[in-house]
């Protein structure tokens, strides 16, 4: 077996136990390392997908078997699709009228809540000063930034993004219960640290500036959400927003 064939099998059956496969792995250090990296990635995927199983799952399955089998048959008879169709049509007619006005109002409310949450989060972050402790390799920080943004559907072009300056910190965090996972980066600005959040959700529309406490902020709608950029007063937020806009291609 040659190295090419070994790696092909490694990627399709990492647990292969065929003699020629195992033999090659024992003889070729590069391939052994490659197989290990494939296995390590599988383990990470497995751990990332592993969820706790409810203790009483089996008991509930058995209970359901006894209690619901008959009831299910009766319900199926009653729940004819046309009944749902009729109800849905009526609901659509009633709600369509109020939908447009609600949309504008809801966007304004969303933007207000988002900026408040982002500034609060930034204030807490600055008090803790967590990111200052990070002195990671710039290439690793850039790779991590790319990986995190890719998870949100953004393809980062490194050359373009370099203009943004030093990336001090990048992670996925929770901004609050409303927003789900959020990309959270801190970069070095001209007036101190600048915090950047990327949040999925209702798009704010055109670029919006805001001021809260000692912070200036800017909202930039891209992809399927918004960047919220927060820096100290007088920070070059427009220039940072320009860089983010130009350096990231979004999968929509």
């Amino acid at each position: 077996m040659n190295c090419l064939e070994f790696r092909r099998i490694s990627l399709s059956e990492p647990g292969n136990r065929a003699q020629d496969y195992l033999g090659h792995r024992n003889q070729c250090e590069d391939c052994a390392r490659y197989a290990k990296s494939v296995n390590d990635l599988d383990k990470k995927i497995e751990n990332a997908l592993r969820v706790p199983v409810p203790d009483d799952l089996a008991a509930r399955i058995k209970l359901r078997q006894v209690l619901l089998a008959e009831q299910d048959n009766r319900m199926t008879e009653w729940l004819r699709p046309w009944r749902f169709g009729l109800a849905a049509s009526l609901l659509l007619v009633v709600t369509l009228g109020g939908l447009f006005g609600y949309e504008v109002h809801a966007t304004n409310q969303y933007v207000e809540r988002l900026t408040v949450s982002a500034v609060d989060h930034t204030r807490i972050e600055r008090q803790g000063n967590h990111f200052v402790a990070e002195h990671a390799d710039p290439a690793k920080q850039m790779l991590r930034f790319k990986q995190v943004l890719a998870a949100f559907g953004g393809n980062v072009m490194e050359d373009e993004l370099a203009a943004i300056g030093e990336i001090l910190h990048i992670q996925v965090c929770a901004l609050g219960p409303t927003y789900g996972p959020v990309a959270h980066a801190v970069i070095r600005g001209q007036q101190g640290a600048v915090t950047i959040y990327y949040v999925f959700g209702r798009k704010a529309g055109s670029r919006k500036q805001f001021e809260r406490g000692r912070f200036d902020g800017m909202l930039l709608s891209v992809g399927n959400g918004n960047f919220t950029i927060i820096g100290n007063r007088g920070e070059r937020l427009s220039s940072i927003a320009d860089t983010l806009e130009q350096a990231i291609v979004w999968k929509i």
Partner: protein
Amino acid sequence: MTSSNNSTPEPVSVDMRKSRQEKYDILIEGLAEDLYRFACWICRDRVQAEELVQETYLRAWKSIDSLRDAASAKAWLFTILRREYARQFERKRLQVQDVDDMGELPAGKIGFDTSTEAFVLRQALARLPEDYREPLVLQVLGGFSCDEIAETLGISSSAVMTRLFRSRKQMRELLGEDAVRRNGMGA
């Protein structure tokens, strides 16, 4: 080559001479957890996942007499689950397509690991074409062999191997694994 794959965990042994109820109980004890985790991944909601697993077992109960081969019990149950998911949740999934496209996973709600690394991995996985993603999840999470995946998906073993090869290759590309190794940045 597929028959040599020995990556599957301890197989569930179903004695076909046992009574319906005994066979059913073995299927629950041996496979409910694997089914639940797979259901969590495809539904992305714990409540729906449990509902799906329960429906799967109800259907399995109704047709347990059609299970002739003990060795294929696991693939048989997963096939029922996939069909049940398609039947029950296809409409719902279409409604939330935008959310799926955004890669939003309600990780906390499901109970997934919420670390950045796990999030990045799940998002990379979510970005794989479905044809590539499902065999990989079945193999990594369900511990299926290529032959079992082939049976579950209704395709040939060689097609499964091709998809698994491409899915892992794409995962490594999406995660920058190969680049990291090339640049000597990896561990």
